[in-house]
Structure formats: C-alpha cells, structure tokens
C-alpha cells in the first residue's frame, strides 16, 4: 500500500480509501456478476 502511494504520489490514506471504494464498486458491478458463481483460482 505504501508502495502504491509512493508510485502514484498520493498519501497511503488516499490509497486505502480509494481502493476500498474501488473494490466496493467492483463487487457490485453488473458485468462482474458473471464471475460470482464461478470458482476463482488465484
């Protein structure tokens, strides 16, 4: 997270807030709902 902040030149807190917002919108994204019933291999 600190590296991400460093790369983008913003504060770690911004990274934290923006990534949780981003994940929240991805989680509810209609296009991605097709993945939710499928096994995901990391």
């Amino acid at each position, binding site marked *: *997270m600190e*590296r*991400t902040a*460093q*790369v*983008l*030149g*913003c504060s770690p807190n*911004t*990274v934290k807030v*923006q*990534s949780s*917002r*981003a*994940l929240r*919108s*991805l989680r509810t*994204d*209609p*296009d*991605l709902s*097709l*993945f939710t019933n499928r096994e995901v291999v*990391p």
Partner: protein
Amino acid sequence: MTDRYPAPPEGFADFVTARSAALLRSAWLLTGDAGRAEDLLQTVLAGAWRRWSTVVAAGHPEAYLRRALFTTYVSWWRRRWRAEFPAATPPEDTGPSDLARESADRDAVRRALARLSRQQRAIVVLRYVEDPPWNGPPRCWAVRRTR
C-alpha cells in the same frame, strides 16, 4: 532505423524486446483498449529513451517504466484520453466455448474497470495485479522514486 534517428542507447532495445509485452499488459488493464495501451506504452518508452542512462543508473529500468506508466496514465488529461467508455450492454450469452467465455471475461473486466475513476483503477491494478499481496515480497518495486 533511418539516418534521421539516433541509434537507441545501449541496452534499450534489449529491454524493450524483453519487457514490452509485460508492460503492455499493465497498460491494457489501465486503459482497457489495445490502441490506447500502445499509445501509453510508447509515450513512456519514448521518455525512457531520452533519459536512458539515468534510468539505468537508478538500478531497475522496469521499476522506472512501471512507475512512469502509472503516473503518466493518471496524469494524462489529453482530450482523447477523456473519452472513457461508459458501460456498454453486457455481453450476450456466449455459450460453452472456452474461447468465447474468455473473451467475455476480458470484456467484463475491462468494462468494470472503466467505471472506476482513473486513480481508483491505477490503485486496483497496482495493488492487486502488479503486486498482489499473496505474491510475496515484490521484485520490481524495490527502487526509490527517482524523479
């Protein structure tokens, strides 16, 4: 290469040959479009070409290039870059073919990423694709910012 252009600096061509495919993949995740991904990568490579000795002296050319990729992407406000693609219609049922499913997956990911803000997209790609927490210590981010 014609006479009008200077020869690439030492090591530059090898670096491009070895790493541009990986960099292009990151650029694609950011831009969601093959053409713009190439545009972004070209811009960043052109900058690195001009400063290649500095880039090499910093110790990790790929780290430099990746950082440049993200910062350029985030700060690039040229008009045509503002043409983000809003949500299109969902892909049609593509049937059982794996290839079709893969392509639908790609498309879904691209469109979902396109709904995020530019900064959010860069953060997601950086944190979860470039440097996922389950991947152990990062290999190419270990260099300090050199600008």
